[in-house]
């Protein structure tokens, strides 16, 4: 064993080994009102049986890291935080003014924006260990309708509203910093923040391009990172890999996917998928994305971590449950 400058000692009594199986994350099964794990790797994965969280939920959204979720209790319409590592444990979260119609997590899952029924939002911060809900923020005066919304890990909301001429107005909204107009787009369809950053990607489905907004106290700087020549066509969904290198865009016009390298080292690449590309969520790994939501059909997955990136399915859940179980 070499010990000149330093050495790696493999000592029989000191070496620790462990063995378990890989999982791709957790999904919420609305039909069962419960969560299911995705067992295995892309291309050889399947769903577990529903996990017992002690109660059932009418809706829930799993955090990007898949360690916890926010859900609405079926019996009491209460907001719950459900920890998903090991056996699920649900804890009520007070302060929600209403049952949110939509919950959107920040990239690292430290914050979330709760969209209310009548032009108001609330911010959930301190997730998951010290959750608290902000006061209501009235956004009803900012435009004719909310088109897209996202929240940064720092708690800044970037939202797109319909303008009178059909275009989109973008506002940065903070719980304490107020509301600030930061720009516009032809038709904003999706927004995704980069992890631990005030930089957000905005999909513009009318201009067929992806914009990058860098938010600052005095406003925002905007740049175009991909256009129709890069394969962007009617984009409706966008998400960013954990490393912030890869951007995956869903094109509605032909259900295709475009992978963009933010470092510029790789040219954009196009993938076809006969699947729902209107929603793109992160799964375990760096650039593995869930395409669409859980239904009675196969769940499609973009595996950007594979040596040869590909689109694969996870077999649909059948009734009676034919999955392999597991916790």
């Amino acid at each position, binding site marked *: *064993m*070499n*010990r*000149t*400058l*330093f*050495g*790696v*000692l*493999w*000592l029989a009594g*000191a*070496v*620790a*080994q*462990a*063995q*378990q*199986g*890989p999982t791709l994350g957790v999904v919420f099964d609305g039909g069962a009102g419960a969560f299911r794990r995705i*067992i*295995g*790797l*892309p*291309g*050889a*994965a*399947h769903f*577990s049986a529903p996990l017992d969280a002690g109660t059932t939920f009418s809706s829930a959204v799993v955090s990007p890291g898949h360690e916890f979720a926010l859900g609405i209790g079926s019996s009491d319409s209460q907001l719950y935080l459900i920890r998903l590592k090991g056996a699920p444990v649900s804890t009520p979260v007070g302060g929600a003014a209403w049952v949110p119609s939509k919950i959107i997590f920040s990239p690292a899952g430290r914050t979330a924006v709760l969209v209310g029924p009548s032009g108001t939002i609330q911010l959930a911060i301190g997730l998951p260990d010290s959750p608290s809900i902000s*006061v*209501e*923020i*009235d956004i009803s*005066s*900012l435009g004719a309708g909310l088109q897209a919304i996202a929240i940064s890990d720092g708690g800044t909301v970037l939202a797109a509203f319909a303008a009178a001429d059909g275009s989109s107005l973008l506002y940065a909204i*903070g*719980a*304490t*910093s*107020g*509301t*600030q*107009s930061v720009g516009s787009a032809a038709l904003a369809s999706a927004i995704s923040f980069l992890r631990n950053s005030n930089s957000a990607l905005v999909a513009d489905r009318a201009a067929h391009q992806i914009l990058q907004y860098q938010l600052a106290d*005095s*406003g925002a700087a905007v740049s175009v990172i991909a256009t129709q020549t890069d394969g962007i066509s009617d984009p409706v969904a966008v998400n960013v890999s954990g490393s912030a290198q890869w951007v995956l865009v869903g094109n509605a016009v032909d259900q295709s996917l475009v992978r963009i390298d933010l470092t510029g080292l790789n040219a954009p690449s196009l993938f076809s998928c006969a699947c729902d590309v209107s929603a793109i969520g992160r799964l375990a*790994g760096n650039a593995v994305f869930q395409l669409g939501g859980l239904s009675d*059909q*196969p769940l499609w997955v973009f595996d950007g*971590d*594979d040596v040869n990136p590909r689109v*694969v*399915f996870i*077999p*649909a*859940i*059948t009734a009676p449950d*034919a*999955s*392999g179980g*597991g916790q």
Partner: protein
Amino acid sequence: MNIGRTFFSILAAAALATVPVAGQTAPKTTISSLNPNSAIAGSAGFTMTIDGANLLDCAAAPCLAVNWAPSSGSPTTIRPSSVGPNANFVTAAIPASLLTTPGSVSVTVTAEFGVSNALTFTINYPTPVISTLSPISGVVGGSSFTLTVTGSGFFSGSIVEVNGSPVATTYVSGQTLTATIAAGFLNAAGNLGITVVQPNGLSSAVANFPVNYPAPTITSLSPTQVAASTTPVNIAINGTNFFTASTVQINGANTSTTLVTSQQLTATVPASALAAPGQLSVNVTNPGPQVSNTASLTVVAPSISGLSPSSAVAGSVTFTLAVSGSNFISGSVVTWNGTSLTTFFTSPTQLTALVSTSLLTTAGTATVRVQNTSQAVSNAATFTITPKPLTITSLNPSSATAGSGALTLTVNGTGFVSGSVVDWNGSTLTTSFGSVNQLTATVPASLLSQPGSATVLVTNPDLTQSNAVTFTINPAPVTITSINPASAVAGSAAFTMTVNGTGFLSGAVVNWNAIPLATTFGSATQLTAQVPATLLAQAGGAAIQVLDPNNTQSNVVTFTITATPLTITSISPTSAIAGAAGFTLTVNGTGFVSGAVVSWNSTALATTFGSATQLTATVPASLLAQPGSATVLVTNPNQAQSNTATFTITPAAPTITSINPASAIVGAAGFTLTVNGTGFLSGAVVNWNSTALATTFGSETQLTASVPASLLAQAGSATIQVVNPNNTQSNPVGFLISAGTPPTITSLSPASTVAAGPTFTLTVNGSGFVSASVVDWNGNAVPTTVVNTAQLTASIDASLIANPGSAAVTVVNPGNVASSAATFTITVPNPPTVTFSGPATTGPMQQPSITFAIGAAYVLALQGQVTLTFTPDAVNPSDDPAIQFSAGGRTLSFTIPANSTQVPPILIQTGTVSGAIRAHMTLTGGGASIPVSDVVIQISRAAPVIRSVTATRSSGSLQLSIVGYSTPREVTQAVFHFNPVGTAAQIPDATVSVGSLFTPWFQSSDSTQYGSQFTYTQSFTIQGDSTQIGTIIVTLTSSAGNSQPVTSN
């Protein structure tokens, strides 16, 4: 060469010049034009043509040169690139480097005869271009700042102008200027027009610099809470970035706003927002819109902290109540159990209100609240009304007669409450609370049965007791109010008489005409006495009187004994058939006595006395010989006669002894039925199942009737009966309608067909067919044509042969007489060819398609099911639950509609375990199985595959997380190669035998759900500086080989 030497002609190689001879003017080098004579600063180089004369190079050494002397900067010379054939022009390449600076250039040419005259070349300014501004916008009220303008065509001397006004500008480079924007430009929202102007006045296009209102912020509100009210209130909003254009929103609605300073606004909170306690959101919006953070204004309800006084005695007079608390407003109302009191506002902390005496009548409590608005009501304060002392002042009635029955006692006094009870000699009476001064109680009769007195007092729920008051029970007089019965018929049997009245004592006796009867004491109001039959023998009256043991006599009541009339009320029986045998007649009525005689049309019958109400008499057969009626009468021995009753002797009924014919075949023609018997009368009718037939009277013993064919359509029987005009009916006789001989089927043509074929005609051969014969197909009639008694044809619709199988064919004659069934066979069409194939081998983690197709559309729907089974071929064999169809599970059921080739796509997931995946299809059409070969896909044993290696470093340790799979479900060895950082020393590879880790894992049930996938974590203890370890390359080994090495991230 100089100007003073002898000149001679020379012939240059490329140019011929005119050379002055001696005595002539010395030749001069001149230039007349420059082409071009100007350029834009920063433009590309070009070739300039200079026209002139004597542009000759020197003979001794090259001297021809263009002299370029800019007005600023250093002069330079340029060697011409060509000379005109007559030395009348030269061309020279002017490089771009000489065109960078605007200004004038003096151009001369040096040639053999010296330096020419000078001409001016002009370098003009380009039009400046603005591409970006930084920052991109400003805010109203902002401070002066430095604006960075980037673009092109900038020069020292270029000036930035704002809305046409030059501002202090610093030249940074040809692409960058900086300018100082004074705060004065930021007084109002809008766009500032930014231009760059060259020294010669050439200006760029205008670039807009937006000046926006900044987002306002709220730091505090004053006050932070207001009382709920019906009138608006003003609040102050403290913060920053407030402007005249700023507006305040209360709960999102704009409200009247006044700018005080840039740090303070005042705003009116409308009454509508103050109606109910709660939180109001307060925002400030600047145009843009720029919306502030949200501040909360609390609307609070009034609160009561004390009442003065806090109690009063029930019945007190009107007084003033002082209410202490907070958040009272002018207009606050004090309520008393929900009723508004006349209220006076003293201060936000005190109100007074008038409490009228009408509110104090009843002891108890009152809830006092303060109400600012209908939705803003204070907490409840309790006001106590103490009761008056508990006393009885009077009873009503204060006395009663013993035995007079239950009564309602009214107790008057004070201090009564709900729940107070009246006590009667220690017993609780059922009591109703009327008021604080009155109770009512029910005194049951049992407590008033005996003379005496009772002590009455009232007990309240708190167990306090009133004073005691005496209730007197006086003795009752002896009286008879009624007797029951009050009369009887003379001669009645003994009975018990009930005597009702008052004042009866135990031992009292009932007298009957002064004769004491056996008497039983029931109560002070009721006696019973036994009246013997001997006292009822004669009609008349009896004096009834009660005698108490103390010899007190009651009033007298008369009992009436009435005489009985002789009447017949009914006889039984009331009729008989003429010629019937003798019988006993029962006569019911009243007043019968022993010796009474029943007479029949004045003929006395042998009579037996049963009772005063019933006799029986013997009626001999001789009196029943002829139809008619008889008068029945009763005569007592005293010759008294009853009313009469009528007995009816009815005629005899007809009888049927035989019918002819007695049967027929179903479907036969009509015929005449002869009915033989007795007692037939003219007008008698023969009935066929209660239906009258056309009947002819032949004699008293024979009738004939016409039976139509319609009555013979169904097999079975009919009931024949004769009804005489006097409605007497004969005995019923049965008539048989027999089925006859059923038809037979000898053959069908065709006897079979292919399923799903068209409608066709079926020929049925046999015998016994009739004109109304019908072919049945599985019990359902089908359209039938009768060819003759031996052949039928029937139309068989396509729907009846849609599916393979068989059908039962029968022929049904009238009367539901059916043949035996003949079998018609519906055969299965030839099945289509089926293609079902897949790759013989594939790798793990794949999702291949299985090819499935049918050669041609099939006329029947096809039902299919594909089932996946997996036979592992691994070192540690196990199933792999990842092996599923894309649709989920391992069973895929489907239906291919008839006449379609549309088959379902079949996509499977191969999992990660080596072995054989078998897809087995069952396919049936029309119930018949179509053979399909299995598809078997082999997943080979292969070396481990590593998907990722993640390294986690900490002080003194290194942890590697390795994710991958190994189709044999086996990993025996891991090799770790550590790449040192920089020039650090090489680290030896670590080889770890991991069979003892992986084998238990792959043999555990926990691993099954992952197939052969694993997350293998390996930790190392590090000596030295762990940061000197760079990436780690991992290789895993199984019996199938080594994995590709994978480098950690």
